[in-house]
C-alpha cells in the first residue's frame, strides 16, 4: 500500500470516529505529537504527587491523611497508565523520564507552585484537579485508543480527588475566621495558575490546529478554560470565597463569564523553568530515581535467582 493510500485510510478512520490502535499505520507527526502530549501528561501526574505528598504527614486528622494518601497513590497509578500508553507508540519509558529530568520534556506548570498551607491541599483538589478533569473528560474521546482508555480510567478515579478537596474547603470556610482567611489566601494564589493549566491562548498555541484536526484534542485551550471558569464561579460562591479577578462577570450576550487576561509573562517564565519550585521538583524526581536504584536492582537480581532455581 502506498503512503498516500495509508494516509487516506488513516484520515478516514479519524473522520468516522474509529479509534487508532497501536499497530495501525499513523503519520509520524501524529505519533510524535501523542508521545509528547501523553508523556507530558504522565510527568504531570508523577510530579503532581510532590506538593501533596509533602502534606501527608501533616494532615490535620487521620481521615484527611488516609484520603490524601489514597489520592497521591492514584496519581502514581495515573502516571503509570499514561507511560504505558506512550510505550504503545514505541517510546522508551526510561528515555521519557530522563527527558523530563533534563528539562527537554515538560510537565504541568501548576506543580511549580508551592503548597504552603493546609488550605492549599483542599484548593489543589478543587481547582487543580477540577481543571485537570475538564481537560481529561474531553480527552476520553481522543482518537488514539490506548490514550482514550487511560483517560476513561483516570476520569473515574479523579472525581473523588476534586470532591475531597472541595469538602475540605467547605470545612475551612465554615470554620474560624483564620481558617476562612487561609482558604481565601490559597484561592488567591492558585486561581491564576489553575487557569494557566489549559495552556497558551489559541492564538499562541503552536500544536492546537493539527491536534484538533487529528482529534487528539477535542476542544481548544481557550474553550476548556472558559468551561472551567463557568463551572467554578458558583462553586466559589457556595464556599463564600472571592475569585481574585475584578473583571470576572457574567456576560449575558456570550452566555459565559468574562475574565481578565492571564499574566502570560508569568506563564512563560514558569514554563521555561523559572517558577518558584521548578528546580526543587526536578531535584526531588532525580533523587527518587537514584535512591530507588538499589530496589530496582535487587528486584532484578531476585527475579534472576528465582528463575535459575526454577530451571535447575
Amino acid at each position: 500500500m502506498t503512503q498516500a493510500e495509508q494516509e487516506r485510510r488513516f484520515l478516514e478512520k479519524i473522520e468516522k470516529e474509529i479509534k487508532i490502535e497501536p499497530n495501525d499505520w499513523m503519520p509520524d507527526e501524529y505519533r510524535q505529537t501523542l508521545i509528547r502530549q501523553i508523556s507530558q501528561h504522565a510527568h504531570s501526574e508523577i510530579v503532581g504527587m510532590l506538593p501533596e505528598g509533602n502534606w501527608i504527614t501533616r494532615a490535620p486528622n487521620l481521615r484527611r491523611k488516609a484520603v490524601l494518601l489514597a489520592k497521591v497513590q492514584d496519581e502514581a497509578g495515573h502516571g503509570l497508565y499514561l507511560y504505558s500508553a506512550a510505550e504503545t507508540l514505541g517510546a522508551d519509558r526510561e528515555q521519557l523520564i530522563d527527558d523530563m529530568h533534563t528539562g527537554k520534556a515538560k510537565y504541568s506548570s501548576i506543580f511549580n507552585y508551592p503548597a504552603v498551607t493546609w488550605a492549599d491541599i483542599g484548593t489543589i483538589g478543587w481547582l487543580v484537579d477540577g481543571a485537570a478533569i475538564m481537560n481529561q473528560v474531553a480527552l476520553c474521546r481522543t482518537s488514539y485508543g490506548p490514550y482514550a482508555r487511560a483517560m476513561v480510567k483516570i476520569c473515574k478515579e479523579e472525581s473523588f480527588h476534586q470532591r475531597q478537596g472541595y469538602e475540605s474547603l467547605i470545612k475551612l470556610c465554615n470554620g474560624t475566621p483564620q481558617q476562612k482567611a487561609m482558604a481565601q489566601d490559597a484561592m488567591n494564589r492558585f486561581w491564576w495558575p489553575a487557569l494557566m493549566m489549559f495552556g497558551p491562548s489559541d492564538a499562541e498555541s503552536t500544536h492546537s490546529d493539527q491536534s484538533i484536526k487529528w482529534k487528539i484534542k477535542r476542544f481548544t485551550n481557550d474553550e476548556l478554560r472558559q468551561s472551567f471558569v463557568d463551572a467554578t464561579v458558583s462553586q466559589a460562591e457556595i464556599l463564600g470565597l472571592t475569585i481574585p479577578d475584578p473583571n470576572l462577570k457574567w456576560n449575558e450576550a456570550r452566555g459565559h463569564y468574562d475574565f481578565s487576561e492571564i499574566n502570560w509573562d508569568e506563564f512563560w517564565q514558569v514554563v521555561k523553568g523559572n517558577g518558584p519550585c521548578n528546580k526543587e521538583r526536578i531535584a526531588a524526581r532525580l533523587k527518587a530515581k537514584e535512591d530507588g536504584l538499589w530496589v530496582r536492582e535487587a528486584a532484578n537480581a531476585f527475579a534472576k535467582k528465582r528463575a535459575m532455581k526454577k530451571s535447575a
Partner: protein
Amino acid sequence: MSTSEWPLWEVFIRSKQGLNHKHVGSLRAPDATLALENARDVYTRRSEGISIWVVESAHIHATDIDEAAAFFEPSDTKIYRHPTFYEVPDGVKHM
C-alpha cells in the same frame, strides 16, 4: 540498570465470578510475582477484580493488522450464518 530491563506484562482482570478476564492495560515488573502485586496496586484499587492474569507481552501472538481484511474475509461473506438470513412465515412462534 534500568526498569527498561524489566519485561512488559499485559494485565487481565476478572471483575466478578461468571465474567471473562478482560485486558485492562500493561505494566513493567521483574517477575510474575511482582507483576501480579503491581497489577493489584495499579488496576484494582477500587475492588475492580477478584482474579488477575499477567502475561509477558512478548509471549502474545497477534494477527497482522495489515492482513486483517483478508484474514477475516471468510466470515464476512457468510451471511447465512446469521438467523436473520432465513425467512420464516408470519405466525410461526417460538423460533
